[in-house]
Structure formats: C-alpha cells, structure tokens
C-alpha cells in the first residue's frame, strides 16, 4: 500500500533521475546533482511536515 511518505520518495526519485541527467553534462556531476535534488525534495517535505505539526500543536 502506497503511503504519503512512500509516494513522496517515489516522486523525488523519479524527478531527481530526470533532473540529474538533464541539468548536468558530466556523468559524475549528474549523479551528484541527482542525489542533491533527491535530498532537497525529501528534506523539504520532512521539514515542512514538522513545521505543520508544530503549528497544529
């Protein structure tokens, strides 16, 4: 069963693969940028989720 968080992980994975390939020219930089994009997307979701939790409570 797909949870909210697993949906986020899949979304971030797919987006970071395409961003990594298209936004950099060198294969090593592609991998690094893909990992950076993935970390940014997932990190932003975690931070915003905790912020919403803090606002609610």
């Amino acid at each position, binding site marked *: 069963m797909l949870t909210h968080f697993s949906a986020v992980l899949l*979304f971030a994975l797919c*987006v970071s693969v395409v961003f990594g390939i298209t936004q950099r020219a060198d294969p090593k930089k592609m991998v690094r940028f893909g990992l950076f994009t993935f970390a940014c997307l997932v990190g932003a979701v975690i931070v915003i989720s905790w912020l919403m939790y803090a606002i609610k409570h």
Partner: protein
Amino acid sequence: MTTEAQKISKPLPAQQSSLPWLVLFTGWIVPGAGHVLLGKWIRGTLIFAAILGMYLLGLGLQGKIYTPSSDILDLLGFLGQLGMGMGYFLARLFGWGAGSVLLTVGDYGTKFLTVAGLLNIIAAVDAHSLANGRKAS
C-alpha cells in the same frame, strides 16, 4: 573580429540538419527516445523508466486526465499532461485515469501525471540540445 552577440547567434553545425527536431519530436512522443536516438542508451533508459514510473503511478492512483478547457487551471494541467506525448494520447484513447478526482489519492495521481509530462518536455529539450551541440555531452 566577431562580437559576443555574433558568436551566440552563429548557428552550430548540427542545427542545419533536421536531426535535432527529429530528436525533440521523438523524445516527446516516447520518453527517453531522443537520447536513445543519439546513442545515449543509459540516459534514455533511465529517463524512460522514471517518466513511465510516474505515469503508471499516476494512473494507478486514479489521477485526472485533463482535456482542453476554457478553465485556466484545467488548461495548464492539459498542457502539462500533453508533455507525456504518446502516454497522454493512449490515456485519452483508452479512457485510462479519471475524468475527475474522486479519491484523495487521485489528487496525488494527477500531480504525478502532470509532472511526468513536464519532465518529459525537459528531457526532450535536453536531447535536442545534445543533438544541436548546445550541450556538451
């Protein structure tokens, strides 16, 4: 002596052939096909897997397939999903996805479908840039 503006406007050798436009069109119709045409199999396969994955997840979550509409948000959604190329036309032809969002997860599905289309446009333009020499490798 050429100025900076003249250097930028000077056409690149590959721009004179029709290959870049063929690559752009093929990349739009089938995700990653533009890169495969240029011999970049790994990139093409990864792009195909990522965009097809998002597309199938979107359909599985009963995401909405937009149709041309006078409503601006629906029109933007339609343009985004049109970026999927063949995937959009197949969904319309076989009635895949949903006509409207009925489930909560359907909203996620709609986002997956729209972002898949937008990513496919980015990938097709990237293949075009590789073909005309604007991108190094």
